[in-house]
């Protein structure tokens, strides 16, 4: 008596329905629903479309010159990791002729930044790109943990934002690089446009969507190749390419007002999936009225390229914001330091743990 083995349901090939096919090639099963326009794409089409769009952005805006040395602001997060990978890929594929360097800033937050820098070092090995790390300690003689122990946790984002922004310029200047590339994406740009309108930041309104920011007072220029790329697509791309990135949020609280604008945009995306690109298009078309000159009154105009009197970097005022913050911090520093004192290390984690305690 012959025995017939039952058919294996796990390995049975599933038939692909027509409605499940990719909307571009119509010949593969769609895996994702593209956030930009809600079209269903397969993996190959999505990766090709995503890469080519960024290439088109780079070419249309003339971001790179042949022979140029470019520093990628690398933090280990998804944006900078995908940016480094993408620039190397497109440089090899389309031959921009640029030299890519990874540039990292160590803020000195034990338990957070040391882990993300480990990710950047792994990226250095994976992509074969040189890596340079500058720390707050080297540039300003303060770590973020020390700043938090002095100034408190609430204001830490202000210090970190000001110092980090200047650190990239300082680091690039030391390396002799005149072009810094950051991973700001379309969501960040749209958020900035909305927040400038909601907060009445008129001075920044016109330039909030510029893809290259440059000033005559600084040899360093910055560009954002991901200007038209959605954050969700960056995450999807990193997932499909199996990129190694660090995704833990900073241990300090996010800015509350920016959070409300972000939630508003999430609701809008449910109704109008292209709203992020639409906001950027609006941002590019905002123009301010010419200011009426008051006869007799001396009008204080914004001077492009103004430099700080102390450190020589870009500043809207006579003394830049970083120097003013440093001056305030120095007044709070102890006159005599205990040797091998490690009480400030990991202050952020300790304070966060203390906040969660309840009695």
């Amino acid at each position, binding site marked *: 008596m012959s025995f017939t083995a039952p058919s294996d349901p796990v390995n049975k090939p599933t038939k692909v329905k027509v409605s499940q096919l990719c909307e571009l*090639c119509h010949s593969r099963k769609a895996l994702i629903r593209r956030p930009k326009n809600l079209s269903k794409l397969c993996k190959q089409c999505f990766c090709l479309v995503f890469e080519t769009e960024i290439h*088109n952005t780079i070419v249309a805006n003339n971001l790179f010159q042949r022979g140029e040395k470019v520093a990628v602001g690398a933090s280990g997060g998804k944006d900078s990791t995908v940016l480094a990978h993408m620039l190397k890929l497109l440089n090899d594929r389309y031959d921009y002729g640029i030299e890519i360097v990874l540039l990292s800033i160590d803020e000195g937050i034990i338990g957070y930044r040391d882990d993300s820098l480990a990710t950047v070092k792994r990226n250095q090995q994976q992509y074969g790109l040189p890596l340079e790390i500058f720390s707050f300690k080297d540039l300003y003689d303060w770590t973020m943990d020390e700043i938090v122990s002095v100034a408190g946790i609430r204001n830490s984002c202000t210090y970190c934002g000001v110092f980090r922004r200047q650190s990239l310029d300082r680091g690039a200047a030391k390396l002799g690089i005149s072009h810094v590339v950051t991973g700001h994406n379309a969501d960040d740009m749209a958020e900035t446009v909305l927040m400038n*309108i909601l907060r009445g930041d*008129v001075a920044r309104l016109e330039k909030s969507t510029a893809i290259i920011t440059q000033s005559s007072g600084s040899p360093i220029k910055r560009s954002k190749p991901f200007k038209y790329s959605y954050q969700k697509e960056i995450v999807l791309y990193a997932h499909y390419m199996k990129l190694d990135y660090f995704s833990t949020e900073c241990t300090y609280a996010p800015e*509350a007002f920016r959070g409300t604008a972000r939630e508003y945009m999430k609701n809008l995306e449910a109704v*109008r999936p292209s709203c992020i690109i639409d906001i950027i298009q609006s941002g590019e078309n905002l*123009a301010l009225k010419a200011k009426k000159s008051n006869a007799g009154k001396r009008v204080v105009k914004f001077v492009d390229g103004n430099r700080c009197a102390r450190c020589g970097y870009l500043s809207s005022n006579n003394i830049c914001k970083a120097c003013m913050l440093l001056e305030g911090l120095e007044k709070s520093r102890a006159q005599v330091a205990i040797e091998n004192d490690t009480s400030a290390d990991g202050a952020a984690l300790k304070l966060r743990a203390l906040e969660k305690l309840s009695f």
Partner: protein
Amino acid sequence: MECQRCPASARNPATVESRKEKFCDECFIKFVSTKQRKQMMKDEYFRNLFKVIYPFEKEGSVSKILLPLSHSDSGSLVMLDIVHDLLLEQTKQHNNRTGFTVDVLTVFTEENVSVIKERMESLINEKMSQLNKISNIFNVHFIDVNEFFNNASEVSTFIIDNENFEIFSKSKSVDDSNILTLKEILGKYCLNNSSRSDLISIIKTQLIKHFAYENGYNAIMWGHSMTKLSEVIISLVVKGKGSQIATFLDSESFDTLNNKPCKYKNLYPMKDLLSVEIESFLQIRNLAQFLINVEETNVKPNCLIARKSLPSLGQQKLVKNMTINEITNKYFQDIQNDYSNIISTVLRTADKLTQPKSSMAKPSQCQICQSKIYTNPSNWLNRITVTSPYPVETTEEKYLFKQWQDSKLGQSHTHYVELLNEIKQGASNSLDVEDGDVKLCYGCLILLNTSIKDKNLVWPKVDTMDITANATNKNKELSQILDQFEINSDGEE
């Protein structure tokens, strides 16, 4: 709690609290009226428009003002009430003369025509008859929303090319067999509530502006509050129409239609008032009876003190069913407690904007929303979007592609491609179309590309439209109100 604006010797109990100040009913009404009147007198043009000018010139020199009234909107009703009080005051002070006359214009649909008839009848009896006994200060007009389609002699079919977002259109004359209706457009083409709301808003605004243009009005008074204006501004930014903010808010320049200069300006008298203040005014003056959605209005947030303790029972809509304006309104309400000056900041910021520099070779106008076009949206969008697929490789993939072609999805796509090719052919044959002619603004391009079925839409050509002929005679039921109104006026005289 006492009113902070009453004289100290005779303080009334406070009933309203707004902007951290307490009012009684009378002082609050005066506060709101003063805000509106201040806006109506804000520059030389409007002062000459609204004031009684001496010496009296020949007959017919009184200014004509158009007041679009919506029976589902509190702002326009409150504005009408304040204008009525202003006119009453002018007749008492100037021996029965006024500086201007008011034409009230209502756009109706077949769904709400009976309710509007009832509400307008009571509004006429209560608010307008008294002044019209002195002289004909108020006129009432009705427009069917379908006039937008009936009065155009040509329509265009717009279609978006899937690959490069280029816009193609084909024109044809209107005959009795292919007259469009609003219901048909919204039901057949629109995929979601947001696109329906957008198209209705475009249609109503254009009907009102065309009416003002054809009949020689000096100004249109819109009932937008500060909150409503901020909502519209943010919504324009979200829809990619940020370049239209300056034109929308402009009260200093004369309006333009189809590149023709108009003789009226757009005025927003309630610009300095929050919507909660307007809702409070509405309740104090008992104006809710004239609205279509009375029950809904009574639940809206206001700043009446007696109402503050009551919890809001408003039902929560799903986000997907909301329009962009509704999401923005909800956002403003949510952040109002923590960041209270957001609304005024948005409006103040938008007031500082101007029209951007145009990169177009020749001036262009959107064929749907009639706004000015400053950049080519197809080129802009094509630059940042890739629509070409990864090539088909394996045998299984070829089999699936063949299967897709034979399916309904493939047939629907084939129909779209055939329509696209047909219109492309028509466009290239037509001598009217010049190369580089841009037909849609960015916002409307995105509307067609994402929210309209099969990316094509039939729309009337606005420059072939004539509103005057049929404005008040189309609907017999509503014209009876007008006849009744006029008969009463003649009888009294």
